[in-house]
C-alpha cells in the first residue's frame, strides 16, 4: 500500500533554507552564552542576600498590622482615592479620544491626531511617567493621579477605539438614513453597542490602577507604594508583609466586586 502514496505533505517551514536555519539557531545560542558570561554573578553577594531573604520571609510569616497602622491606613486610603479619581477622569477623557481614534466614525486628520495622542500616552511605562510627574509636581498623590490618568487614557482609549471599529455598521446606516446627526448617531448607534466593553474595561482598569498605585508610590508618587518603600527602607519586613497582604486582599476584593457589577450591568 505504501507504494501507492503519491502525496507527501509537511507544514511549510518558516525559514526555507536549512543552512539559514542552522546559522540563525547557532547564532542565537552563541549570543545567549556570551550574554550569560557578561552578567556578573557574585556568589558572596547572593549568600549575603539569602540571610536578608530569610529575614524577609520570617517577617512575611509574622505580618504586623499594628505598629505602623496609621501610616498603612493613610497609604491605602490615598491609593484608593488615587485609583478612583484617576479611573473616572481617564474614562471621561478616553471616550471622546476613543471615538476620535475610530476609523469608521471620523475623517482622516481627526483619526490620526487621536491615534497619535493615544500612542504618546502609552509610549512609556507608568514608572517613567511617574518619575517625570514627580519631578514636575513634586512628591505626593497628585503626581500619581496624573500618571495613572495618562496610562489609563492610553489603555482605555486604544481598546475603546477598537471596540468602536467593530460595531455593527447596519444600525448606524439606519440612523443616517433617518437623518440623524453625527452626535445622535454616536449616542444611539455606537455607545449602546460598546457600553458592555466600556464597563468591562473600566472595571479592569480600576483593578490595574490600584496595583499601579502601589508601584508608582515607590518613586514618590504617593499612595500605599510610598508607605511600602518606607517600610522596606526601615527593614520593617513585618509591616511590608502586612501591606502586601492588604494589597492582595484589596485586589481580590476588587475582582469580586467587579465580577458582580459586570453581571448586573451587562
Amino acid at each position, binding site marked *: 500500500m505504501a507504494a501507492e502514496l503519491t502525496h507527501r505533505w509537511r507544514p511549510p517551514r518558516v525559514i526555507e533554507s536549512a543552512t539559514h536555519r542552522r546559522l540563525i539557531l547557532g547564532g542565537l545560542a552563541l549570543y545567549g552564552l556570551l550574554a550569560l558570561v557578561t552578567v556578573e554573578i557574585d556568589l558572596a553577594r547572593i549568600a549575603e542576600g539569602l540571610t536578608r531573604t530569610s529575614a524577609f520571609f520570617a517577617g512575611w510569616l509574622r505580618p504586623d498590622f499594628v505598629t505602623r497602622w496609621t501610616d498603612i491606613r493613610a497609604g491605602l486610603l490615598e491609593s484608593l482615592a488615587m485609583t478612583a479619581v484617576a479611573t473616572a477622569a481617564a474614562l471621561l477623557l478616553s471616550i471622546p479620544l476613543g471615538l476620535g481614534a475610530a476609523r469608521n466614525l471620523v475623517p482622516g486628520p481627526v483619526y490620526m491626531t487621536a491615534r497619535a495622542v493615544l500612542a504618546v500616552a502609552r509610549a512609556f511605562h507608568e514608572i517613567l511617567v511617574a518619575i517625570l510627574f514627580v519631578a514636575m509636581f513634586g512628591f505626593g498623590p497628585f503626581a500619581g493621579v496624573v500618571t495613572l490618568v495618562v496610562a489609563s487614557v492610553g489603555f482605555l482609549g486604544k481598546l475603546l477605539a477598537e471596540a468602536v471599529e467593530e460595531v*455593527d455598521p*447596519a*444600525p448606524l*446606516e*439606519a*440612523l*443616517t*438614513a*433617518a*437623518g*440623524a*446627526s453625527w*452626535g*445622535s*448617531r454616536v*449616542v*444611539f*448607534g455606537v455607545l*449602546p*453597542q460598546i*457600553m*458592555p466593553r466600556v464597563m468591562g474595561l473600566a472595571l479592569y482598569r480600576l483593578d490595574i490602577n490600584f496595583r499601579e498605585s502601589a508601584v508608582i508610590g515607590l518613586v514618590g508618587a504617593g499612595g500605599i507604594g510610598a508607605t511600602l518603600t518606607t517600610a522596606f527602607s526601615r527593614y520593617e519586613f513585618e509591616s511590608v508583609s502586612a501591606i502586601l497582604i492588604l494589597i492582595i486582599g484589596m485586589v481580590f476584593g476588587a475582582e469580586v466586586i467587579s465580577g458582580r457589577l459586570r453581571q448586573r450591568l451587562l
Partner: protein
Amino acid sequence: MSEQQHPLRIDDLVVRYGRGEPVISGVSIALGPKEIVGLIGASAAGKSTLLRAVQRLVEPESGQILLDGVDLTRLPREELRGARRRLGMIFQEHALIERLTVMENVLAGTLGRTGFWRSVRRRFDPDDIEEAFGLLDRVGLTGLEDSRCDELSGGQKQRVGIARALIQHPDVLLVDEPTASLDPATSVRIMGLITEICSERNLAAIINLHDVPLARRFCPRIIGLLEGRVAFDGPPSALDDAVLQRVYGDEATRAHADAAGEAGPTEEEEEEEEEPGRGADTTGASAEGEDSLGG
C-alpha cells in the same frame, strides 16, 4: 409628467465603487403616487446599491434623484439630512440597535428632528412618544415597548424596523430585502404589513426582493435589474419565463423553480406565529388579519 405626479424619480443614475465597472449604470425609475414597485434581480444586480444611492448612503456618480422635484444629488449635507427624513428605509436584517429597547429603536426614527441633548437624555417629544405607541399597536407589538430588541424574534424585529421608518413621516419607503432573514410564513406577513401600511398612508415604495413569487404577489409593478440596468419594467402578469431568464441569467433555473412552485406559503401555514417574545402572539396576529394580506 409634472413633478407632483412622481414622489420619487430616479433619472439616469450611475453608481460606481472605486474605479471598477459601474454597479448601477444609467437606471431611471419614475415612481407614481402610492405606487409599490418590487425590484428583483440576481444577487449582484445592484438592487441594494440602488436604494442606498437614493439615500446617498453611497454617493452616485451621475444622474438625478428627484424627491418632490428636489434633486437630492445636489443637496448640501445639512439639507440632505432633512431630505433623508422623507425617505423611510427598512433594512435587510432590520439594522436595529440590539441593546436598546423597542421604544428607543422606534424613536431613533425621530432623530432627524430631535436635538442632540434631547437624544442623549432620551427626552423625546411627547407627541412622538404618543405616535410611537400608536405605531407599535399598528405593527402588532403592543406592550413590548420596554423589551430589549435582542429579545425579539426576527419577525418582531422587522416590525420594529417598520415602525422606526414610519415615525420619520416619510413620503416614500425604500425597503431592502425585508424578508431576507425570515421564514416563508413570516415573510408573507411582513410583506402584507408593509403594503397595507403603504396604502393606508398613501406611501409610494420601492421594495427589493430576492423572492420572485413574493414580489408577484404584493407588487403591482415589478422592475428587473440586470447588471445595473433596468431589464424589465411591467406588471407581474408580464413577468414570464423568458423575462426571468433574461433578468436572472445563470440563476434562471433557480428563479424559474421558485416561480413554478407555490406562490408563497399557503394561508394555513401563516397561522402559527414564530415569536418567542412575551405576549406578541395575539397582538401580532390580530394586527393583520389574513384577509387583508392582499394576496
